């Protein structure tokens, strides 16, 4: 029977489907290769675009000699920044007055600012011809090479070259904010610990790279853009604005999208340039990014420097923190929330699940001649969690307190929630301590310590690393403001029952692998009382879905889920009204179950949903004034906070520095669980990416600003053989604030795993006094931490 949860105005119907680990309805097409991505699309007369990209980190473009190309204007076309000079540059939307802006032309006009910056687009009849021409044209671009700015340090050195001359500085933001009384906290401290941490630059590696296909139908005056994007409606608005088209003449379709992880948020310059070129040529133009190009030109993430001073008592109580968070923004402060996306979000989320009541944050960001930094799963939060959890372990070790115990002493109890953190984040509900305790019980903590001791005597170094986290979710107006980068938000879903009684759910969120077709179908099925198989979820096409911002920042389950639940509830009422007319009963006495409407307690008096829906559309005797069974609902949720704990067990080969992960236990609490199987897989996937950041992944740049990780031989993402078994356990603390008690999830694993790995390594190497100050933990760095070679800073 239906069960109503939470306060009535937030209630959703939860019956047979919500909470059930149903198989994902989208998987058959992913697994059989029948899913169609941008690269699979072919249009008549379609042309192929290839970019000419800067080989220099910093240079002035003097000339592009297109005359070297045979067939120019007949079989080959070239577009340079000059050709697109009337297209306005891309600028971030962050509402902060003292943030300097760095307009990014969609193809560079006078200057290039990183290796991979767009210099020209070559278009030809097939990809081979376009690449041949691009190679030729690359040799015909004349540059004046400028001194490179390869790091934040170089950016702020006296006399540093400026990326944007008119700004007069490479540091585009610096701001201090005080929360609570740190003076008092530090005066009261028994000990003060400090650290300087460099969080590595790594990024999303979606299986599908970026790609755009654009076509302008003159007869319809209609521009259609297929893009591998997470935000089709938002992209439509931006394309219309940038290209000066009426928005209703632009349609954006995100076909199957093979992963995004935040990288396919907001606007890639290519998403403007390719439609512009298609308009000019009057032919469909397709650009598919190849992997080499992706590693150069796609946005990167997570690089920042965090300097901390932590005031603690001898009992290990965290009294106050002073933190400096410096982002390395790359060549442009990118339009996904600017270069502050890392440092500002790190600062605001720093307190995590702990009772830290005094905190001074200083947030800064600098431009460097590297690929721009933008969103990647766990924006800012990963770096903050990493440095905080590493620090807590070090403090515990110094004070002789067990790492579990020091967390117990500082963690917020569930009965203290809702709790507003010192930085203004309102934690709605959670199970911070319970997650920690469950994780320790699952790994059998005491037994591990005994074994660790025994094996150390044999020269084997095992370690256990804990990382607790709070994950900010439900990214709407409230959540983005609490994160420190305020942005308005707007999302809708439309639920429609057709005359045959089957259900279409059109959502504004845009799935790129997360399983929305399944989760939303579960919510609609419960909301309406139908079988999941009778629900189809559509998204990713601005023509068929209602307006909304799309999918990013763990927002879809909360926002999309709520809008689907609300619209389903409306349609359910509409159905019951018609059925009541047909059954000559009171709508309040009716129930819908498995697609049959009956009088409660008298199942023999019933109609099938198909009968009712048919009547609702066609039978003028029973239908209402607005007979269509449909509703569109909006939601802009309050922030919700998921939480959990990741524990890593690892072994370090003390002779080679190789780290082997033995076991991972993850506790996840994301409130009401819609589909436990999807939650488990999201946790696992995120942890794998966190392992990447902890052990393998880093975009490396030489001192000359040249990228050194431009293939997957050098940029190392974890593979199945690098990942140990990951056990995921769930706790469920429904949000008292959100519809249905749903919280977002999916980033926690990546937020927490790097620190868990780092802490496991530091724990294993405690006899050597190892202190992790950067990631990844490559074998070379591990031997340095042990003092076996050189210095840890080498």
């Amino acid at each position, binding site marked *: 029977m239906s069960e109503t949860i939470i306060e009535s105005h937030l209630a959703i119907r939860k019956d047979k489907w919500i909470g059930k680990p149903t198989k994902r309805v989208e998987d058959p097409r992913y697994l059989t290769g029948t899913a169609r991505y941008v690269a699979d699309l072919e249009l008549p007369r379609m042309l192929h675009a290839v970019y000419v990209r800067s080989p220099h980190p910093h240079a002035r473009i003097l000339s592009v000699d297109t005359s070297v190309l045979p067939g120019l204007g007949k079989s080959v076309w070239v577009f340079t920044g000059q050709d697109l000079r009337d297209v306005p540059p891309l600028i971030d939307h962050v509402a902060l007055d003292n943030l300097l802006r760095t307009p990014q032309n969609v193809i560079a006009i006078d200057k290039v600012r990183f290796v991979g910056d767009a210099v020209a687009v070559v278009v030809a009849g097939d*990809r*081979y011809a376009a*690449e*041949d021409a691009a*190679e030729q044209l690359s040799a015909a671009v004349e540059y004046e090479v400028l001194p490179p700015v390869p790091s934040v340090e170089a950016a702020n050195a006296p006399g540093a070259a400026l990326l944007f001359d008119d700004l007069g500085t490479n540091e585009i933001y610096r701001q201090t904010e005080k929360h609570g009384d740190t003076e008092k906290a530090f005066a009261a401290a028994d000990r003060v610990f400090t650290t300087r941490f460099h969080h590595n630059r790594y990024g999303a590696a979606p299986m599908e790279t970026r790609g755009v296909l654009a076509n302008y139908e003159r007869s319809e005056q209609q521009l259609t853009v297929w893009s591998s994007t997470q935000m089709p409606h938002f992209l439509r608005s931006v394309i219309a604005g940038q290209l000066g088209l009426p928005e209703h003449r632009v349609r954006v379709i995100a076909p199957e999208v093979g992963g995004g992880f935040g990288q396919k948020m907001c606007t890639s310059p290519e998403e403007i340039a390719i439609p512009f070129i298609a308009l000019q040529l009057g032919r469909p133009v397709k650009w598919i990014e*190849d*992997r*080499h190009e992706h590693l150069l030109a796609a946005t990167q993430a997570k690089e920042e420097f965090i300097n901390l001073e932590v005031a603690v008592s001898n009992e290990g109580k965290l009294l106050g923190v002073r933190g400096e968070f410096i982002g390395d923004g790359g060549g442009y402060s990118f339009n996904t929330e600017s270069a502050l996306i890392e440092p500002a979000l790190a600062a605001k989320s720093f307190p995590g699940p702990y009772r830290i009541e005094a905190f001074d944050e200083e947030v800064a960001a600098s431009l460097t001649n590297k690929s721009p930094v933008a969103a990647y799963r766990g924006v800012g939060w990963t770096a903050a969690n990493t440095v905080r959890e590493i620090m807590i372990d070090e403090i515990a070790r110094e004070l002789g307190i067990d790492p579990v115990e020091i967390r117990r002493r500082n963690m917020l109890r569930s009965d203290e929630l809702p709790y507003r953190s010192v930085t203004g984040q309102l934690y709605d509900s959670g199970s911070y301590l319970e997650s920690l305790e469950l994780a320790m019980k699952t790994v059998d903590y005491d037994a591990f310590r005994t074994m660790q001791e025994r094996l150390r005597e044999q020269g084997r170094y095992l370690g256990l690393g804990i990382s607790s986290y709070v994950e900010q979710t439900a990214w709407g107006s409230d959540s983005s403001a609490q994160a420190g980068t305020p942005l308005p938000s707007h999302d809708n879903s439309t639920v429609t029952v057709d005359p045959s009684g089957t259900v279409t759910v059109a959502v504004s969120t845009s799935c790129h692998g997360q399983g929305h077709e399944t989760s939303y179908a579960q919510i609609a099925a419960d909301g309406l009382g139908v079988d999941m198989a009778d629900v189809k979820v559509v998204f990713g096409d601005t023509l068929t879905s209602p307006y909304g911002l799309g999918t990013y920042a763990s927002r879809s389950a909360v926002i999309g889920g709520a809008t689907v639940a609300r619209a389903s509830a409306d349609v359910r009422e509409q159905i019951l009204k018609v059925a009541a007319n047909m059954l000559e009963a009171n709508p309040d006495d009716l129930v819908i179950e498995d697609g049959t409407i009956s009088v409660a307690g008298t199942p023999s008096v019933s109609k099938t949903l198909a009968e009712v829906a048919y009547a609702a559309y066609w039978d003028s005797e029973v239908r209402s004034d607005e007979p269509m069974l449909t509703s569109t609902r909006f939601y802009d949720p309050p922030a919700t906070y998921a939480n959990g704990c990741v524990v890593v067990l690892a072994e370090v080969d003390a*002779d*080679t*520095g*190789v780290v082997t992960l033995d076991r991972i236990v993850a506790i996840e609490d994301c409130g009401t669980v819609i589909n436990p199987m999807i939650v488990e897989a999201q946790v696992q996937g995120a942890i794998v990416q966190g392992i990447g950041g902890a*052990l*393998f992944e880093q975009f*490396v740049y030489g001192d000359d600003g040249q990228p*050194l*990780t431009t*293939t997957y*031989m*050098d940029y*190392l993402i*974890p*593979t199945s*053989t*690098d990942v140990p078994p990951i056990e995921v356990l769930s706790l469920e603390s429904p949000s008292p604030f959100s519809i249905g008690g749903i919280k977002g999830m999916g980033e926690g694993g990546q937020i927490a795993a790097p620190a868990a790995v780092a802490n496991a390594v530091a724990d294993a190497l405690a006899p050597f006094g190892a202190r992790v100050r950067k990631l990844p933990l*490559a*074998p*070379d760095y591990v*031997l340095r931490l042990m003092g*076996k*070679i*050189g210095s840890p800073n*080498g």
Partner: protein
Amino acid sequence: MKPPPFTHHACRSVEEALGLLDADPDGSKVISGGQSLVPMMNLRLASPAHLVDLNPIPGLNGIDVGRGTLTLGATARQHAVERSADVTAAAPLLTAALAHVGHPQIRNRGTVVGSICHADPAAEMPAVFLTLGGEVTAQSAAGTRSIAAEDFFDSYLTTALEPNEIATAVTFNTPNGSSGWHFEEVTRRHGDFAIIGVVALLTLADGRISDARLTIFGGAATPVRLPAVEQLLVGVAAGDVDADLLAQAAREASAALRPGDDIHASGDYRRHVAGVLTARGIRTSLERASARA
């Protein structure tokens, strides 16, 4: 990631392939498994005008175990060699090392001979070849010659083969019954090229080390044997190989190398771990040899 234009020649005989190479030695490239060459072409780091494809040539994929030798034809796939019970019986070291070459998908196409010709200094097969010893059968339109393993590797991706020559086969010497081996490499991830690796082969006679062959790969522009370490070991009774001797061997191994830094590890790391792996190589090889003796 598309190669520039080229002509593909599906050869039906070695003679046809040799003729094509001879016609344009500098503009042509032999292709066997394509697992190294094609990525280089896609990145436009190599742009041969002619691809001389050995794959269609009948009979070139032989795996032949003889008395004290193992001969692999140019198109014998890494996977086929890895799965051959005869190879495992004759040269278990080769089987063990093959499991570290990329991934099964790569080994389904890649060839052992191609890997040796490609001569990546961090690759497994060249190091195994140098350790076991043997020869490359090099054919050109002018005739056939043999190149000994120790003369084959010149430098980074460079061998003694002339541009108009094809390695039609590689013959490995297979160790006798009283030897033991060790293969170990440090990689960031399973299946990657080695940061640093060791191949060791020790032979015992009357309880003493009669032959010692140790190779480090990933530590120089080619795989390198460690003569100083080998000299240290030959003639020593198995029971006398103690911690001090292993430490000395490790020092000698480190001292023999001047590896550079790259993004995966520093030269210091490689030198240090070369010593560690050398000691492990000696220890494990001796254990294996003693168990068989």
